[in-house]
């Protein structure tokens, strides 16, 4: 099939970007969206043009490196899918796709579709870990954890830190990401110990990075490739209220 692309091109952080139109022919519906971009980039390189820069690593939907906005939808039109796991069969012959980087003040564009997500790393550094001594690996039954908590912690831990939640939010809020990280630790005995300081530090860092305030529109939950639920934000709020006021 034939795909028309309108891609955001930006030389570097300081440059003013703009859209550029491309047309890719002989696209197989079995190709992934990135393989289609690879094909286009090969053609660009052959013509001596600068290839389109985009972030990716595993291409298996597990590392969190990738992420572009396609026709205004973070990671494209499907639910629960990363950009790298999106296939061209989701589109039709002759479609025009507008491809843009994540847009948020705290995710500045580095080049083309690549954004700087170090703000997420700094939030993790501010509390997204366990610093108590947890000893060696205990027997699985040595620390009883209710199944419901173990499952909830695991669900939250599936967040890959891609930033789609921020990208789609009209407030560029990072609360789904921070909520997932806080919930994951809060549900487990080793994480509970430092819960108060953790949530206060992570929220302080999130605010310092310039992310917005959640207004509960739910767009993040709708776009998250790992289907992290809004319950994580409720847990974040509750933990923060308790740590700050009680």
């Amino acid at each position: 099939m034939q795909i028309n692309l309108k891609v955001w091109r930006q030389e570097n952080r300081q440059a003013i970007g703009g859209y550029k139109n491309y047309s890719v022919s002989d696209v197989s519906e079995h190709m992934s969206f990135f393989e289609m971009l690879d094909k286009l980039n090969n053609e660009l390189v052959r013509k001596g043009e600068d290839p389109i820069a985009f972030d990716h690593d595993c291409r298996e939907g597990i590392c969190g490196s990738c992420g572009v906005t396609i026709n205004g939808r973070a990671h494209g039109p499907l639910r629960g899918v990363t950009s790298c796991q999106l296939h061209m069969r989701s589109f039709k012959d002759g479609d025009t796709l507008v491809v843009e980087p994540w847009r948020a003040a705290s995710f500045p564009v580095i080049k083309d579709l690549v954004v700087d997500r170090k703000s997420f790393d700094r939030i993790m550094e501010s509390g997204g870990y366990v610093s108590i001594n947890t000893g060696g690996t205990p027997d699985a039954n040595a620390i009883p954890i209710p199944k419901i908590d173990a499952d909830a912690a695991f669900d939250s831990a599936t967040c890959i830190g891609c930033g789609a939640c921020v990208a789609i939010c009209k407030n560029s809020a990072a609360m789904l990401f921070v909520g997932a990280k806080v919930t994951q630790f809060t549900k487990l005995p080793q994480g509970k110990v430092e819960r108060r300081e953790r949530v206060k530090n992570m929220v302080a860092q999130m605010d310092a990075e310039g992310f917005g305030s959640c207004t509960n529109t739910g767009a993040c939950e709708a776009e998250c490739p790992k289907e992290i639920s809004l319950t994580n934000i409720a847990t974040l709020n509750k933990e923060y209220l308790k740590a700050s006021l009680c």
Partner: protein
Amino acid sequence: MNWLTTFMNSSIGKKFTMGTSGLLLCLFIAQHLVGNMMLFGGEALFNSYVATLSAFKPLVRIIEVIISIIFLSHIISGIRLTLDNKRANSSSYNVNTGSETSSFSSRTMAITGSVVFIFVIMHLSTIWYRFQLVHGSGSYYDIILGDAVGFGNPIYAAFYVVAMILMGVHLKHGFQSAFQTFGVSDSRYKGLIEKMSMIFWLVIPAGFTWIALWFGFIAEAI
């Protein structure tokens, strides 16, 4: 008090102010509707109801001040929230898909809230102000139904209806949103919150709307 300012200036603290003040305003509109219902009891009942309230002037004044503070804190934190969020979301996408991932009411809170604000200011400067000037023989009922600033004036009545519908849209998102902000949206109270939300976004605004339609347009026509 350092912890308090830290909390109040945090993203979650601002939401907390928004939610608390919003829910308190919900209580206020609920009692206001009960008062308005007295209009259906006729002139004598309504006037005696307002006169009874006026007998507790000092108490009413204190409550008015408290409500004003709640209202102002709702608006001020609403403005702060909206401006901070605009700053965080510096540039927009070429294709806007808000309608695919979020509800209409959640995306229009600042607009619906602002219309309600304009309505409240107008409401206070007309009805509330004239109520303060009534002494002894005057009729509150006549002010409400009159042609000057009451439902007898079709423009006022129509704006009343529009404002109440938009208040319903504001509360469609706002009421349940406050419980998410407090972190209790997924608790055992979930079902109760959903039922209460229906009362606040649908039943109460519909009640105000019905009163305006009835006294503004229907009662005259039949």
